[in-house]
């Protein structure tokens, strides 16, 4: 099993609606209807984890919609032919496991 396949398998255990896509030849993980806490409130929306260099960061987590609580400003980006939002926050560098990367990125909207 490749590294990406193994990492994706762990994400899938965390969230069964995860689907592995590809853009630019690199893995892109779509977590459909993913639930998380932001500003004390529960949110459910599609999020996109890109565990490699993208749009100037070493990894990125994109959200379907902005939340009211974010540690920095939002920027928009088009990935997989949809428009997404990401927090222009600190960089979360590989080689963290994808599950850990996801958790670190979610801290941007805690």
């Amino acid at each position, binding site marked *: 099993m490749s590294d990406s396949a193994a990492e994706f398998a762990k994400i899938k255990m965390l969230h069964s609606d995860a689907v592995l*896509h*590809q*853009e*630019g*030849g690199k893995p892109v993980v779509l977590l459909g209807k993913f639930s998380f806490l932001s500003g004390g409130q529960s949110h459910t929306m599609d999020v996109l984890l890109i565990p490699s*260099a993208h*749009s*100037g*960061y070493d990894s990125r987590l994109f959200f379907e919609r902005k939340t009211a609580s974010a540690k920095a*400003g939002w*920027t*928009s*980006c*088009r990935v*997989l*032919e*949809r*428009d997404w939002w990401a927090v*222009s926050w600190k960089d979360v560098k590989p080689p963290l496991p994808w599950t850990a990367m996801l958790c670190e990125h979610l801290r941007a909207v805690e």
Partner: protein
Amino acid sequence: MSRFERQSFLGRDSEARLDAATVGIIGLGGGGSHMVQQFAHIGIGGQVDVDPDHITDNNTNRLIGGTLRDVRDATLKITIAERLIRGLQPHARIVAVPDKWQNATEHLKHCDLILGAVDGFIEREQIERFARRHLIPYIDIGMDVHDLGEHGHLVAGQVILSMPGFPCLRCCGFITDERLKLEAARYGAAGGRPQVVWPNGVLASTAVGLGVQLITSWFSNPPAFTYLEYDGNRGTVSASAHVAALKGRVCPHHPSEETGDPFFDIREHMRRFESTPGRLTFWRRLFRLPPKH
């Protein structure tokens, strides 16, 4: 006698080809406004012009067609563009979008060619990916003025043709992760750099020339990939060394498996559109598409 008589060398059918073509221009500032004007002069029949901004005073040193009155009236750049086009092509098929390009993709998908005159590398990369997904050739232009300290300034720029299946902006080293990082560190602020009219004119004219080579048959062996570097101090436009180095190279950054919309579902598409038979007739007329079956 046609107003295109003096360009008949472009080919017997060139007038028809140019009229049938639709080009998309993203960014209607110093570079884009030149391209709008030139495509109208040469008889391109359709334009999709995209820019969210209105003209301001500090655009007037380079925005073709913009006047001081437009500044006073806060005229949208797309309005200036449309005025330019209509003065030459009264029946042109124009879609003018006063918004960011991500909100114009339904119109841009119709284009035979997309040209970008935008400020940032992050944006360029996204536009190019959109164009590649839809098998649309993309031409990128841009200029910079580099402060060389006691040695003065260097006016420089580039015109890059990114054709599906051929090297891309990453292949030729124009877009790199390092450049994207620097831009992201500035929170994506890429504008406000020195800009002046004549380098924009050179770059835009070169881009239009490449576009006409793709649309008409006048040039026997048009390039499928080119990276032209402009040296404004020497007054030269020459092929980058990347062109020869990348000959025959297949682009790994836009795999052929990634065309289209990964979420497209014909069942959902049919549900949305088969219940509205009269919808979008306007766009069909605009882009001269055949009538619905």
